[in-house]
């Protein structure tokens, strides 16, 4: 941490910028074609929209009114993912429901709109819908079943990276930010990066450069003087409830709007989503007004949402491709674009942007096709048929999985450090040694991203302390760094709690602050 900034040069065949699911997917796709890559992210895996969404694996039905092309893409891709990555997916099924006050004609047409997209959509009686989901409002007047599912984007990204690392030694570097490109004779010669932990400079020399920066793709393209990436930013805010309220994904059957979807995720449910145009990506965070509108709107569909206990809120930014007419951001195409930048006089740079979690694999495939062609590699894409192999150190993100492994191992010496989510110390040890992106100065946020630690009702306020103590015992820390990491972790978790602290969470917060600030004095730590 105190070492002097040093210069380092790394050579690789392809540099991929952006550790979302798309970047991770490109890394794996290229590795299966025998191409060696380096994936970098200024923060960590899924730090942007890949982690800031519902975890919905779209059947495509949400898009049948506005964007038939996207609907078909979603239908195809979700089918593929259910085959190649079942360990990251729960086939929950989905419901579309209309409640009193919603447009009856819209609701009536839904079934016939799904047909041309090839989406299996079955009308069911409202009593059947309430039998499937007892918390649904009694003011329902129309209901359909669709093959929606849920996906754990963290597990998915980790497995993509782990597989690529295994296949051909491709590698991932977290907290490595692109600063500039050196361009010469129509090519990028090098990318100048900074390690945000050590502040050291890293020069990456690659044959091909891929911009998979998600919402930041436009900024990254500008660094290479490419003016052909035009994005709009639409911020969405979501809430996580303490309990899982439904077994299915429940969608409101009306044109897309606030608070119109509730997606289960393991032991919790995620309610969303607002849509707000933003210009500045650095200040994106949930607001009280967005929370209130999601709860109010969601309550029409599921009245229990009014009194549910919420443990977290978060915001993500949808990068939308700019088109001429975009009155409502939710109506803008959710398709993706691959820009080869030949019009910008660069022959070894491309940008993949737009799209959505469900179509990440296809986005990776198209990008990899372009890279392979440029490198005269004729191996075809394999990711639509090759299953994503399991990797032990990546398994800790799955809700409810930790207790299973812990119970099975039956080791009395293996203590539970996160009591809400039952994460044992063996999981922490495995993550800091073996997980993709593991490193010496790995902090609590990085550990939490690779596990369920801190995801329960206490949001890390207790396990943060226990894990830190464990890491001191293990010799991971030798000075105040552990306390600073702990404080930073609590500050980071708080961002997601700030707008939903009422009811039992207010009591939880009072206890946490009394412990962290009243007793331990983390508010008075001197910075390093």
């Amino acid at each position: 941490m105190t070492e002097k900034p040093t210069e380092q040069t790394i050579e690789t065949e392809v540099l991929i910028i952006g550790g979302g699911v798309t970047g991770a997917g490109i890394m794996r796709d290229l590795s299966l074609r025998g191409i060696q890559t380096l994936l970098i992210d200024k923060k960590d895996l899924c730090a942007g929209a890949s982690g800031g969404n519902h975890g919905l694996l779209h059947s495509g039905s949400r898009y049948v009114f506005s964007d038939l092309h996207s609907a078909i893409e979603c239908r195809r891709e979700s089918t593929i993912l259910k085959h190649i990555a079942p360990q990251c997916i729960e086939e929950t099924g989905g419901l579309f429901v209309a409640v009193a006050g919603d447009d009856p004609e819209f609701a009536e047409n839904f079934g016939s709109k799904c047909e041309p997209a090839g989406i299996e959509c079955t009308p069911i009686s409202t009593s059947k819908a309430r039998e499937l989901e007892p918390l649904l409002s009694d003011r329902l007047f129309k209901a359909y079943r669709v093959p929606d599912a849920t996906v754990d984007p963290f597990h998915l990204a980790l497995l993509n990276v782990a597989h690529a690392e295994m296949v051909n030694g491709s590698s991932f570097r977290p907290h490595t930010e692109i600063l500039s490109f050196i361009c010469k004779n129509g090519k990028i010669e090098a990318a100048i990066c900074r390690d945000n932990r050590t502040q050291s400079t890293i020069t990456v020399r690659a044959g091909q450069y891929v911009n998979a920066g998600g919402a930041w793709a436009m900024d990254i393209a500008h660094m290479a003087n490419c003016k052909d990436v035009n994005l709009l930013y639409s911020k969405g805010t979501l809430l996580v409830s303490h309990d899982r309220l439904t077994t299915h994904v429940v969608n409101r059957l009306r044109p897309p709007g606030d608070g119109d979807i509730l997606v289960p995720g393991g032991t919790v449910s995620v309610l969303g989503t607002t849509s707000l145009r933003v210009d500045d990506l650095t200040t994106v965070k949930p607001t009280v007004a967005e929370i209130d509108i999601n709860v109010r709107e969601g309550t029409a569909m599921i009245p229990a949402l009014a009194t549910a206990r919420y443990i977290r809120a978060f915001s993500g930014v949808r990068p939308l491709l700019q088109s001429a007419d975009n009155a409502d951001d939710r109506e803008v195409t959710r398709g993706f674009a691959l820009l080869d930048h030949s019009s910008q006089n660069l022959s070894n740079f491309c940008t993949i942007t737009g799209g959505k979690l469900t179509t990440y694999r296809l986005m990776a495939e198209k990008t990899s096709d372009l890279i392979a062609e440029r490198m005269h590699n004729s191996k075809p894409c394999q990711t639509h048929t090759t299953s994503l192999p399991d990797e032990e150190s990546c398994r800790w993100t799955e809700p409810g999985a930790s207790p299973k492994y812990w119970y099975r191992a039956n080791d009395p010496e293996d203590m539970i450090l996160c009591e809400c989510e039952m994460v044992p110390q063996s999981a922490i040890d495995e993550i800091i040694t073996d997980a993709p992106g593991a490193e010496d100065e790995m902090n609590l946020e990085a550990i939490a991203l690779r596990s369920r630690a801190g995801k329960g009702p206490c949001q890390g306020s207790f396990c943060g302390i226990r894990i830190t103590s464990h890491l001191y015992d293990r010799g991971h820390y030798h000075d105040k760094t552990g306390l600073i990491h702990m404080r930073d972790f609590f500050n980071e978790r708080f961002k997601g709690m700030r707008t939903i602290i009422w009811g039992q969470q207010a009591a939880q917060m009072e206890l946490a602050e009394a412990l962290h600030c009243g007793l331990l004095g983390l508010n008075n730590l001197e910075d390093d």
Partner: protein
Amino acid sequence: MIEEARHFTAELAVIGSGLAGFAASIFALNRNIKTAQIGNTGAIAYTTGYLDLLGSLAPDYAASIEDPWQGLELLRSSYPEHPLCRIPQTDIHTAFEQFTGFLGECGISYSSPGKTNARVLTPAGTLKPTLCMPATMQIGTTAFSRQEPCVIIDFKGLKGFSSSQIAANLKDQWPELRNTTIEFPDMSLGEIYPEVMARALEVPETREKLAKILVGAAGETKIIGLPAILGMHSPDLVRKEMEQLTGLEIFEIPTMPPSVPGIRLREMFEQLFPQKGITLIPQQKVDKLKIEQDGARLFLSDSFGPITVDAKSVILATGRFLSGGLEASIDGITEPLLNLPVTQPGSREEWYREKYTDRRGHEINKAGIEVDASFRPLDNNGAPYSNNLFAAGVILAHQDWIRGRCGAGVAIATAYKAVEEVEKYLS
């Protein structure tokens, strides 16, 4: 099971079983007021045993205050609404003396309130300012200030208490500090808990076994620090005997809550209050409170049936969100028992600052109920809700006990004041 209605009468009903509630009962006992104390055992098991009067000052709560009495003077000029500013310093001092004196008589000795704050150890290896501490923790503070060689000892299987963490964080300020890990006698496998260890140390045989291990772990060093596990009911005796057995000086450091020093206080109160003539119903929440001109009636029930308590006067010491004295909903903050008006920020957006550890603290922590000069809660018109209703503790508005490190100060001082006013009312 036959349900039987039970009925109690008292001159004073104290609602709340946190530090403020227990302090109020002790002060009432000292004034010979017939008292009944009712209400959930709130956050007392979460206390560390340290009794803070005032440790930091607004607006940035940064530097620790060395002299809390001088700190109170500064607070009086900068923040006169603070409950501690509405009580004479001599009364605050008397309140601390009476409170710690009572604890000492009952077997848990405390340091008496001095002129300055002590810097005491936390389980993270940081230091915090406090006014009074349990006698079992005092050696640690003196050893640190004298920079004497010391070994912090932790136990295999005890989570959240790492002697390497404490030593790593204090090494710059205390070069003579070392650390080691040992096994607790007869608990070598799996997870162990401070409460279980403390109860085990009530048994002489366990003390002898542990003493042998401690001597080995201390080596040449004469002072050792342990997590707070030295007995549950007579910590002073346990510590003294451990010192005799080992020939070492021994002190305790609080563990993560719920920690043994908090449980000690709770169990001691629960055991001794009934013996001293206080009607104590600590595990039940008061469902309803009816206040009338000449008296009050409390309604509650347990598994044996309904209970009513009639009292001439009431002290509301129900705490904040953690103990249920205040409730936060999506629409605002309320006081659930009497629906007293709660002073609070204009909207939920203002409850918390953007950054958790923002040095200025969060506005929600200053929310609470208003009282008049006699510590009687005010109604919507700004008049006392009733002549016989008083309030004490952190339910009061205009204080941030967490950042100000004044939780025990607010609890003990306002309880003292409220009981004084109750006595005036009763006569």
